[in-house]
């Protein structure tokens, strides 16, 4: 399956989804980006350069780990995990960011901007900018700045300027709007490092391309570990959808069931979650440069979203998934905040892994389905990020009394 040949339709479209809905002022900039990316994509030495960079800088290939304790306890399928948490900066975000850094170099631009929700993409972008010598500005909703201070700390110390966005809901979507505003003013020297497989063409294609390194490795690794077998099911969490696109691309042509796990938040109901496809509250719209399913009202204004995981807390889903969902190729499920909290505790205690709250959504659905599967069946989960960097959020999510005590004492120390 080649989603990106656009032979049967218009460039940048996946069925009826995708496209490029941008202010006219960006037309030339996006054309230039498209041309540069497609040139790189055709050039085998570009991918080799990218892979080399990821090996040396980010510790790739990341391993696939077998989880014998959890598999045994659940009594069903054998569970394996692709360890994107072991990347430098702690998540899969670095795959996309380093790739776009190479593109930015080829474009001859000296400045990068990026939006960030949980802060992982901003953190990765600040890291890339430091390594490549770019000026870097990160836009982050004020609400997210407040709940993700450790990531803001690292971004600033890596040399990036972090702007707390005061508009709208003051979260990820508002940070994206602010990036657009910066980009329409500074496109001549600035590349916009969009963090997920959303936004206008060519971003969904480009982000998917760099993230495909996950699936390529995972396909090879799982076969090595299981004597040539492929997984029966692959689970990945879906906010914008870049980590899921990354791992799923390794299995599109195989008889493997692919399950995208969205943020169920407080459960179904307008404004209570960020599940665009698993629940039936979203509808097709055009915003932030592309056409897809958005959580919006009848007038086309976006709704509030809710999730324990800031990285999944987004109004729209990547257009490729909207299409693959319609085609029945990817199934979508939602995990609620409560399920995520319970699953995180289970995974930590049985296997010593600490998945990010985002990734724990994928674990939650795998844990639910594994017992119903046979012992000879195989599940692969994408652990897109590590949870220990989220210690403040996780401690709150788990309502940890000892941690609260520690923070109070620390605050008292600062005040004295």
């Amino acid at each position, binding site marked *: 399956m080649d989603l990106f040949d656009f032979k049967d339709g218009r460039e940048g479209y996946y069925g009826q989804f995708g496209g490029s809905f941008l202010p006219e002022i960006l037309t030339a900039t996006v054309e230039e980006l498209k041309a540069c990316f497609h040139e790189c994509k055709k050039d085998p030495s570009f991918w080799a350069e990218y892979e080399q960079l990821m090996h040396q800088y980010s510790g790739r290939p990341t391993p696939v780990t077998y989880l014998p304790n959890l598999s045994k306890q659940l009594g069903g399928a054998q569970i394996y995990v692709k360890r994107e948490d072991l990347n430098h900066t702690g998540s899969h975000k670095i795959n996309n960011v380093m790739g776009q850094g190479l593109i930015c170099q080829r474009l001859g631009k000296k400045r990068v901007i990026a939006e960030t929700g949980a802060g992982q993409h901003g953190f990765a972008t600040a890291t890339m900018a430091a390594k490549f010598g770019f000026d870097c500005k990160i836009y982050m909703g004020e609400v997210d700045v407040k709940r993700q201070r450790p990531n803001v700390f690292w971004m600033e110390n890596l040399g990036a300027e972090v702007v707390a966005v005061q508009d*709208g809901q003051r979260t990820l979507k508002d940070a994206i709007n602010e990036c657009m*505003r910066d980009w329409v003013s500074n496109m001549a020297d600035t590349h916009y490092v969009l963090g997920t497989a959303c936004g206008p063409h060519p971003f969904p294609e480009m982000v998917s391309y760099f993230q495909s390194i996950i699936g390529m490795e995972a396909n090879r690794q799982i076969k090595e570990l299981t004597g040539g077998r492929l997984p029966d099911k692959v689970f990945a969490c879906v906010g914008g959808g870049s980590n899921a696109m990354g791992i799923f691309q390794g299995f599109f042509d195989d008889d493997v069931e692919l399950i995208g796990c969205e943020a169920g938040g407080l459960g179904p109901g307008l404004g209570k979650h960020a599940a665009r496809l698993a629940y039936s509250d979203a509808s097709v719209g055009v915003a932030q440069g592309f056409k897809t399913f958005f959580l919006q009202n009848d007038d086309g*204004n976006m709704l509030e979203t809710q999730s324990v995981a800031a990285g999944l807390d987004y109004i729209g889903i990547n257009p490729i998934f909207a299409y693959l969902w319609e085609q029945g190729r990817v199934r979508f499920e939602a995990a609620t905040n409560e399920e995520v909290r319970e699953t995180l505790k289970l995974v930590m205690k049985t296997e010593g892994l600490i998945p990010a709250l985002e990734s724990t959504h994928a674990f939650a659905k795998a844990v639910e389905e594994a017992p119903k599967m046979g012992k000879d069946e195989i599940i692969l989960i994408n652990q897109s990020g590590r949870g220990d960097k989220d210690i403040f959020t996780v401690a709150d999510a788990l309502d940890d009394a000892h941690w609260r005590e520690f923070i109070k004492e620390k605050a008292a120390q600062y005040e004295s």
Partner: protein
Amino acid sequence: MSLKDYIAERKAIRTPLVMTHVVCGYPSFEDNMKELEIMNAHGVDFVELQFPFSEPSADGPLFVKANQESVDSGTTVAQCFDFMAEVTKRFDFKVLMMGYYNTCFKMGHDNFIKRLKEAGGCGYILPDLPIEEADELHALSKQADLTPVILMTPTNTDARLAQLGAASQDLVYCVARKGVTGSKTEMNQEVITFLERCRQATDVALGVGFGVSAKEDIDFIAEYGDIAIIGTAALKAWEVGREEGLHRFFESLGL
């Protein structure tokens, strides 16, 4: 009378023509009406009624705030069309719907065109709808005799401007500079060159916007364009001095 004839007729009275802007429901529909009374008294030729959207990514800080507060206070698309109907009945200036494409997409192209026509609008400006995506909407507009106002920008190549020109009718919106709405534009040689390129690309009237705020800007547009588009500066004047502030602002523009 066709929009083309309207523009010609008004041009005979005063150049440049003037287009102003209000964000529906901000601060309130009552205040919008007061703003429009003053704009009408100063002889504006066109008014954009912006339908507020939750993600106004092409707007600058003041219009972002206006969009947001209007959405938050519960302004609906239906109310905006009702307001437009009231406005077109009451005043002689022409009214354009301005907004983001999702407002139109969500209600359906047919329905959008029908409602706009019924409300007495003469066209629409959707800055995030590129011409590549606009075939169906433009065809429906033609049947309904509504004008889609296309944007031309300084970063466009001559070839692209020619494409935009070919898709245009009656008037185009020339964006005088990069950036979002509301910051000051220096009307200099660069802008002149850009407007000359626009003129090459199309025969229709050139509206010039982004940062128009002083008499010099109006005089400049009289020379190099056809319609001065005043957005943020008028809202700023209203925010500072309400009726009196807006009135004095238009006076300062020589209108």
